[in-house]
């Protein structure tokens, strides 16, 4: 268990370094690293500090958010098919961003788009808790989440449908595919407080998630306050995944696949899966963001697209393996 966390941390550090060294500018390794600390030409220092560093940092932050949220929701809902998008936060954040792009608000000031997305995520959470009722059950939460996702998806389609401006439409479509290209430290500083709040909230719930292995009734009798736990988890997922969607668009599969892959390595304990899945998410997003730059350097391949293309077959393989082990 401790070995696994150390291995994943090492992998994150390694991929972080690789991510910093890859880009169209084609600098040497030594040159790049010294520029990172401000010892180099003006142009290369700018590229390293203002373009590549925030990109790599965002990959780690978003990976942690998605992996952690996926593991937390799978544990809470006791369902290996749960993922952060299930509670409607990502689609609502996307709707907020789409509205900002469509109305031209996004062009008005730099943070307009992510702020609109965060507002979308916040509204979704309020609606979710209102719909799901006070008693902390998981089924009503799933149903409410699906309803909100459907509504946000429909409204996004409506905006695209009625948009008089084809450029806005293509901008929206590309934004929704999810990417880390051309992000800056402004995005890092905007997302980081929300994400850290979300991570902290989720990490407090490990023991409750373990107890839920026995079902809601038994967990309740073990002193776990299910209503409070659900509130904390929903808030944590919304803050971290809402912020991730706000700065990078919708990136799927990380929150679904990572907990699934790592579960056997932590003895299936939901609390142990939380940190492992957070690090695993960072590994996967860094890897994918390196891949989009290496695979087709001259075309802007979107991170979310690559993730889905790689993630879906991987997931099919996992399902096949699970099916075989279940006989």
């Amino acid at each position, binding site marked *: 268990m401790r070995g696994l966390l150390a291995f994943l941390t090492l992998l994150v550090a390694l991929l972080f370094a690789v991510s910093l060294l890859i880009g169209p500018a084609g600098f040497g390794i030594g040159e790049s690293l010294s520029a990172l600390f401000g010892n180099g030409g003006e142009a290369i220092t700018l590229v390293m500090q203002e373009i590549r560093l925030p990109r790599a940092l965002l990959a780690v932050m978003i990976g942690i958010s998605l992996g952690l949220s996926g593991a937390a929701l799978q544990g809470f809902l006791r369902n290996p098919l749960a993922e952060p998008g299930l509670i409607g936060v990502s689609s609502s954040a996307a709707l907020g961003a789409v509205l900002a792009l469509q109305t031209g608000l996004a062009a008005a000031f730099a943070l307009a788009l992510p702020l609109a997305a965060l507002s979308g995520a916040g509204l979704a959470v309020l609606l979710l808790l209102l719909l799901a009722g006070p008693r902390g059950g998981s089924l009503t939460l799933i149903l409410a989440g699906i309803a909100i996702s459907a509504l946000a998806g429909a409204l996004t389609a409506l905006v695209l449908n009625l948009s008089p401006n084809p450029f806005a439409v293509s901008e929206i479509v590309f934004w929704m595919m999810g990417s880390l290209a051309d992000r800056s430290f402004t995005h890092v500083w905007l997302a980081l407080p929300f994400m850290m709040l979300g991570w902290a909230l989720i990490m407090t719930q490990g023991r409750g998630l373990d107890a839920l292995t026995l079902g809601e009734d038994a967990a309740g009798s073990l002193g*776990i306050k299910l209503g409070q736990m659900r509130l904390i988890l929903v808030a944590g997922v919304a803050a971290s995944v809402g912020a991730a969607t706000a700065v990078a668009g919708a990136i799927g599969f990380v929150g679904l696949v990572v907990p699934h892959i790592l579960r056997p390595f932590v003895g299936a304990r939901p609390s142990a899966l939380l940190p492992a899945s957070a690090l695993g998410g960072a590994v996967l997003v860094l890897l994918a963001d390196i891949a989009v730059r290496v695979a087709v350097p001259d075309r802007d391949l979107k991170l979310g697209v690559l993730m889905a293309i790689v993630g879906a077959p991987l997931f099919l393989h996992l399902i096949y393996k699970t099916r075989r082990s279940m006989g």
Partner: protein
Amino acid sequence: MSGFHIENLSVLRGTTKVVDDVSLELGAGELVGLIGPNGAGKTTLMRAALGLLPHSGQSSLNRLSPQERAKTAAWMPQAREIAWPVSVETLVMLGRVPHLGAGQRPSETDHAAVGAAIKAMDLQGFETRSATELSGGEQARVLIARVLAQDTSVLFADEPVAGLDPGHQIATMETFAKSAISGKSVLVSLHDLGLAARHCHRLVLMDKGRILADGAPKAVLTAENLHKVFGITAYLSETKDGLIFLPLEVAK
């Protein structure tokens, strides 16, 4: 404090009272069987007494904070849920959750309690096996071990022996009897009236949300009660091997 009591407990589902003004007291050292037909309100009564359901009336357990209550009363629900393929030892250790402070790792005491529970349920050698790969009866024993590991003065179990082989049914009832002898109060809902008659000190008969009879097995399992509540006739006899109960046929 040992034992527990509930007073005038009622639970509404819609407009029907599924538990209707029930009062019950269990002293330390009692093993009480809760019997009654399907839908009599046995499960609802136990869940409400633990504060897991909205209800009116009093329960001595429900006055405690959730954490304190979890140290006082353990609950084994009828649904035998094991969501993840965790090891048997990890699962039984969940019974120690109420005893651990925030971020605290299991101590020697916790490991000892888990070891004793695993031994009591005849699960030695299963510790590292994945709980979801066991048979239904073995899983039931693991879940009972979890309840024992919680080491509370009050123990509620809903249909704990359903699906167990005869040997383990008897062993489980004897484990509960041993817990009672050590000073705990054990309330077990049972459909097997033969086991209930043999192993419980006292039976509580429920029908339509109310307690119909409460007392020694022989006083509760009367021909009249059995006919009225279960619609059956039965053979009941005190022998040199103890009380023998056998349901015979559906009453005409």
